[in-house]
């Protein structure tokens, strides 16, 4: 959680808010016939795991971001659409 908020108080609050929303939203008020609450609860755990995983890996995000910037800057070298 502290990592997700980048060790700032406001960031931590926001991060906790996201996880809290995920937890609360998947345990109450779901129609069991449309989406089984036990499935939804486990799904939100999976999402939390992935979020933590990708937040930890800032290098990957920076790499993807740079790729995107390069493509936007020079569309001809992008390889797609000549």
């Amino acid at each position: 959680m502290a990592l997700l908020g980048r060790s700032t108080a406001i960031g931590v609050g926001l991060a906790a808010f996201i996880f809290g929303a995920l937890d609360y939203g998947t345990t109450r008020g779901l129609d069991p016939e449309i989406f089984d609450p036990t499935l939804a609860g486990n799904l939100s755990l999976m999402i939390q795991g992935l979020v933590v995983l990708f937040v930890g890996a800032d290098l990957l995000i920076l790499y993807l971001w740079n790729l995107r910037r390069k493509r936007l800057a020079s569309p001809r070298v992008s390889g797609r659409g000549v």
Partner: protein
Amino acid sequence: MKVPALTPKRIAIVGAVLGALAFWVALPPIHVRNLAVPVVLAALAAAAGAYAVRAGEARLGWSATVVGFLGLGAGYLATRSSVENLEIVFTWSTLIASMLVFATPLMFASVGGIFSERSGVVNIGLEGMMLMGAFWGIWGADKTGNWVTGVLVGMAAGGFMGVLHAFFSVHLRADQIIGGTAINLLAIGITGYAFVQLYGTENIPAGVSEIPRLQMRFLERIPPDSLGDFLYGAFGRLSVMIWVGLLFVIIAHFLMFKTPLGLRLRSVGEHPRAADTVGISVYGMRYFGVTLSGVLAGAGGAFLSVGVISGFNENMTAGRGFIALAAVIAGNWRPFGSLFFACLFGFSTALAFRLGDAYRDSVAGLDVLAQMLPYVLTLIIVAGVIGKSIPPASVGRPYTKQ
């Protein structure tokens, strides 16, 4: 004959043994019913401990004193308890057999943890890898009808988590503690989701192929009779996986300390730059270590689900991955050291179960209280009864190629 010199260290060790003896004499098969014997033994233990502390052997001396007092308390309880109950709890052969059953998942996982940590990657994700192994192992055994493929599927699932952890912590240089935590969360989510999706509300159907036991009748015929019975009860009917686990500990020891591969793995964990300069692939070795740890943890989890309870519950590993990690650290990153601690945790778990069974009627709540025993033991051990343990020098630090 030369008498060994009475150094403070030796005295402290003798004190600790006396403390343990204070408890042991009150148990079957000796059954001392007189309280005086444990008291005298415990007092001797405490005195030896105090002497050792004064002579400068602080850590061992205090340990001996503590063991003395624990022995006194446990011995007192044992002399007050009825003989029948003691016989139920302390049937040594069954106790040892179930100790090995509880120790085996820890054995696999902690050997895996050693491979990962020796290569320089902290593996908090052992818990999640075990859980994946547990679910996909029983799934494989259920679908293919064969426990071997089940365990292999579980190992593959654990290995997949291992590769994931390796990718994030080696190539992406993410924080390893956070990566491991993410692995744990992810594993709980994936196994829980798949369990509900694949099996719905009912549990794994009964009659899943079980891991066979290795029958060793010849142990029974070892003279004298009581020894033969004891050996057969303790070792004669163990699951095949337990023997495989013990074999893995030995293999891991040789691989780690006697082969070039092990030397490379350790050098990558101690000083990656130096290892890189002499041409060892740091990334390759770390991938190998972490993936192997995932595979082994998966095997441990699969043993838990296929071999022990023939079923699956959500989050059934219940912190065993963390206990395995504690065994790695307490065992000083050595396979045999962690085997010892895995057996200690296994023993306390087995003891907790039997205590709960025997005293369910007489002492209210003891069965629940006893479940805490392994965790308390973890706490005591990690808090420093054991000497200082030295981790691999660069464990937890990502390596950047130059």
